[in-house]
């Protein structure tokens, strides 16, 4: 047993570092650091996306023949960690991590040729039509319907919590094509163009003041039957494949440890109000140390999963464990950040974006300007992609055999 990287891994790490050094501009770094929403804004995210695309590094999680990098799981981990350490923007997962792998795994050669290159290049921006007003944790009860009419599916219903629907060219949606069978068996996975009269997008304001999510309404919206992925009724198994990708495969620990490092730094410069710095207050110091321990343990948990993947085993319900731990540790970091930054952290600016020339002047510090927004937005981390409660049910059932 060892947890060292091989010399090839270290050479790879150095290559990634050199690339980041040369390509990650201050504008991108600043945009990433000062975007307190869950998703980075497309102007920053897509600029970085295209840089990675030109390097051939935009889709580490895809099969090599479809445009992936062919990296080992360890290399993927190294890449993610170096990006986190360098403060690179997190790319939108919607195309690259969610629908892309679905098309790679279930798409026909024609579908692959049509959609994958435009996801890789960033020409198409995607959003996800999963949750509905009446179907959240009980996703399989979804009601949005699609019926075949000539060569098209005609879609009626609504989707909710659709991140960046207002930026998207396409939506991948779970729809009901058969209401007479068991609920899971009647679901189909469709790709639907957003720019059409049958689709309308309504913003849902977040309590942070951000506009990230939307409600999407389908009124006789249409998509060609050629845009169905898999067979009719196969949607639920595709959905589960996608959700495992959403929950797992990505590593939380590098970004969590990066955030904790920043708090440790700030704690040395933030006055406690009673002489000395907040970092010397044993109560705060201990809480921060406790969170660091959690994140350090999670890093090894993630590496253990990676080691399994490297042996060719499929990711399973461990993705639920990582999602559960990662999102909760993140929320504890957000709480500590508010505590650390004191009265300044109560500011909640509504102007967006907070990077670039138009950004409002922060009160106190840039960290304080985004602390509350991050706290509020990240309450969603234990809800989206399967809530904590859903993850715990999955683990109880599939891991613990309860």
């Amino acid at each position: 047993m060892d947890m060292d990287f091989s010399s090839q891994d270290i050479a790879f790490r150095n290559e990634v570092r050199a690339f980041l050094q040369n390509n990650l501009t201050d504008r991108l770094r600043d945009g990433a650091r000062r975007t307190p929403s869950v998703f980075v804004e497309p102007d920053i995210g897509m600029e970085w996306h295209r840089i990675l695309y030109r390097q051939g590094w935009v889709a580490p999680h895809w099969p090599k023949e479809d445009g992936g990098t062919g990296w080992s799981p360890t290399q993927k981990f190294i890449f993610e960690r170096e990006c986190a350490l360098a403060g690179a923007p997190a790319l939108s997962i919607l195309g690259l991590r969610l629908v892309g792998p679905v098309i790679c795994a279930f798409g026909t050669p024609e579908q692959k040729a049509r959609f994958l290159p435009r996801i890789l290049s960033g020409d198409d921006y995607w959003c996800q039509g999963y949750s509905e007003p009446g179907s959240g944790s009980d996703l399989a009860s979804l009601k949005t319907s699609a019926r075949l009419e000539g060569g098209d599916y005609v879609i009626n219903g609504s989707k909710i919590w659709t991140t960046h629907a207002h930026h998207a060219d396409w939506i991948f949606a779970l729809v009901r094509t058969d209401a007479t069978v068991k609920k899971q068996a009647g679901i189909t996975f469709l790709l639907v163009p957003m720019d059409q009269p049958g689709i309308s997008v309504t913003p849902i304001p977040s309590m942070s003041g951000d506009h990230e999510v939307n409600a999407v309404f389908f009124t006789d919206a249409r998509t060609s039957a050629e845009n169905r992925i898999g067979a009719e009724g196969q949607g639920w198994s595709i959905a589960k494949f996608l959700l495992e990708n959403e929950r797992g495969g990505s590593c939380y620990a590098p970004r969590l440890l990066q955030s904790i490092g920043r708090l440790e730094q700030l704690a040395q410069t933030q006055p406690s109000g009673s002489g000395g710095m907040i970092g010397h207050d044993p109560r705060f110091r201990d809480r921060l140390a406790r969170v660091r321990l959690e994140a350090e343990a999670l890093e090894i948990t993630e590496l253990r999963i990676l080691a399994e993947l490297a042996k060719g085993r499929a990711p399973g319900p461990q993705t639920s464990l990582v999602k559960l731990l990662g999102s909760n540790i993140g929320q504890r970091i957000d709480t500590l950040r508010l505590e650390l930054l004191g009265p300044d952290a109560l500011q909640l600016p509504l102007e967006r974006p907070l990077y670039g020339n138009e950004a409002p002047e922060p009160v106190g510090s840039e960290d304080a300007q985004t602390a509350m927004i991050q706290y509020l937005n990240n309450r969603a981390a234990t809800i989206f992609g399967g809530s904590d409660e859903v993850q715990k049910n999955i683990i109880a059932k599939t891991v613990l055999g309860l």
Partner: protein
Amino acid sequence: MNFDLSDEHHMFVSAIERFAAPIDVAARRRLRLSPAGYDRARWTQLADMGLIALAAGADAGGLGGSAVDLALVAQAIGAANAPDPLIELGILPALLLERGGAGAALEGVLAGTTIATLAWTERGQRYSLNATGMKADQNADGFALTGEKTMVPGALLADLFIVTADVGGATACFLVPKDAPGLCLRAYRLADGSIAGELTLARTPATARLALDNAGLAAMAADMRLYAAAEMVGLSQRLLDDTLAYVKQREQFGIAIGSFQALQHRLVDCYARQEQSRSMLYRAMLTDRADAATWHRAAAGAKAFIGENSNAIAREAVQMHGGMGITDELAIGHALKRVLVLDRLFGDADTALADYALAA
């Protein structure tokens, strides 16, 4: 022994309920998003109801409300999820101006015609009441103030600033009208939608010095901790009530999510927290004030205890509402944000808990 509300208490509470009722979440949102974060006409109505006057004694032109009266009013404001900054812009200045002997200014505050706000927070001092970044220098005409304050509540509404400043190593309070020379204000929005300000004074003349010393300020902070705690008890009651209603009505997997034991047990934990918070509030508001140290300690403890419970209930309320809890369209998010602000008013949980522990 009797923990029942009096008829008069019921009257206050129902008056606030009636006043707050027309402000639904959408109206609250519009009000909070307006440039000053609040509406002056609404403030006048609040004053006309006597709610600000409750904070001052009859001799000073007030209605002579007790700490219990004020705590119950604050709790009712919280339970209604009302957008009114009564405790920070009403009760706080009224207490200070009365105790500091500023009768003329107090009159306008009680009537709602003058809005006064306390500028006490300094970046370097965090939650401490000691003013070091604002200096008062005596000259032939009185005092001139120079320095900086942050997180001044109601910055764009205030006609009058009550500014804490250092005078020879002690902290004193001075009155500064908003149009005073050398006064510079930069407004910014807080989590609860209210507008706070960074206040800079440069050789700004004070119109008066309040007859208050550090002990007077500490007493005011104890009062404010009690009222902040009371509003939080009201807010967490609202959060819990709304969440209970939601889990009974929201169906997933064919049944109400409130039928899941995993949620039931957590809701029982929230209920226990809420009952304990209410008891702690009663304990603090009924504590005999004859001994300042005992009463200040009770207020500090209550604030720390209730702040922690209210935050925990707010987080559970969001989680159980799922995506809806994250939006700005339910009382849940608004109440959570107000709790975050109140929890840090006159000291966060660590600060208040340390004050409680050290005073033992």
